[in-house]
């Protein structure tokens, strides 16, 4: 395995996350109870997604500056991994919400209409759909250079819509989702407790590095393929 120190870091941090995440101290809050531990998993998915999308857009810009096809492959694979994390974040959020936001007197499915109206969920759905469109657009163009160029430009647009749809719009509208005031999960004064932060930040780094690891594997495979095709 080449350059493996950060892969080892990722594994160590994830093992730490899973141990400390289940056994560590958490504040006892009504409604949330033990589900507050989802912070180490659900929220980290979104953080990893945002970081991977950022890496993706940086590679798109690098492609447009150099027209090196390598960066196009980077951008696409990072976007795919970002989508994977986004979907995982969405699914875990749906599970979490159905036991904390939903009316306990009704079946979870019956509260769906209230929960589904939440602006944060709609924003996240829009962001993910925009990224699906990126994949469809890029992969449907046959010509390699055209594909890379249009894909890169669209990726920048997609990143630009990510901001309003997951960071700005949900904060303007009333939402059930926590972290509407200020900076979710990063607010030092009155958000998550100190002992949780000790697990949360390493968890974000661990999950992100795992995503990067898997992405580099896909990139290397793709580059091998390209080489085989051109040979």
């Amino acid at each position: 395995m080449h350059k493996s120190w950060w892969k080892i870091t990722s594994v160590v941090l994830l093992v730490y996350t899973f141990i400390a995440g289940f056994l560590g101290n958490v504040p006892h809050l009504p409604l949330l109870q033990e589900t507050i531990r989802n912070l180490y998993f659900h929220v980290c998915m979104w953080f990893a997604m945002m970081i991977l999308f950022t890496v993706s857009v940086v590679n798109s810009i690098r492609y447009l500056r150099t027209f090196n096809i390598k960066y196009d492959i980077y951008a696409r694979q990072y976007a795919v991994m970002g989508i994977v994390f986004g979907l995982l974040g969405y699914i875990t959020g749906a599970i979490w919400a159905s036991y904390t936001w939903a009316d306990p007197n009704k079946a979870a499915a019956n509260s769906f209409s209230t929960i589904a109206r939440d602006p944060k969920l709609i924003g996240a759905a829009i962001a993910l759909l925009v990224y699906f469109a990126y994949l469809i657009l890029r992969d449907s163009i046959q010509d390699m250079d055209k594909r890379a160029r249009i894909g890169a430009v669209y990726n920048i647009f997609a990143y630009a819509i990510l901001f309003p749809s997951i960071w700005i719009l949900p904060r303007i509208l009333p939402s059930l989702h926590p972290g509407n005031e200020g900076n979710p999960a990063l607010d030092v004064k009155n958000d998550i407790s100190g002992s949780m932060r000790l697990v949360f930040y390493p968890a974000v780094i661990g999950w992100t590095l795992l995503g990067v690891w898997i992405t580099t594997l896909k990139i290397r495979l793709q580059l091998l393929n390209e080489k085989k095709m051109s040979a």
Partner: protein
Amino acid sequence: MKIIRKISLLFPALFYSLLIQAQDKPVQMADTMRSNGRIYVVVAVVLTILSGLILYVARLDRKISRLEKESN
């Protein structure tokens, strides 16, 4: 010095027995895996899954490295 260190190591052991006396619960076969609502079992399960996934990714990594070497 060495003796002092040895004695100081003894202290936790002494206090530990005090700790055990303090909790006189009814019959509980409390080994670690069954304490705290058996949360440790969950940790063990989750760690097994994580290590399985990591091993899988690491093996993939090695395979791709080999492919890269072959193609060069």
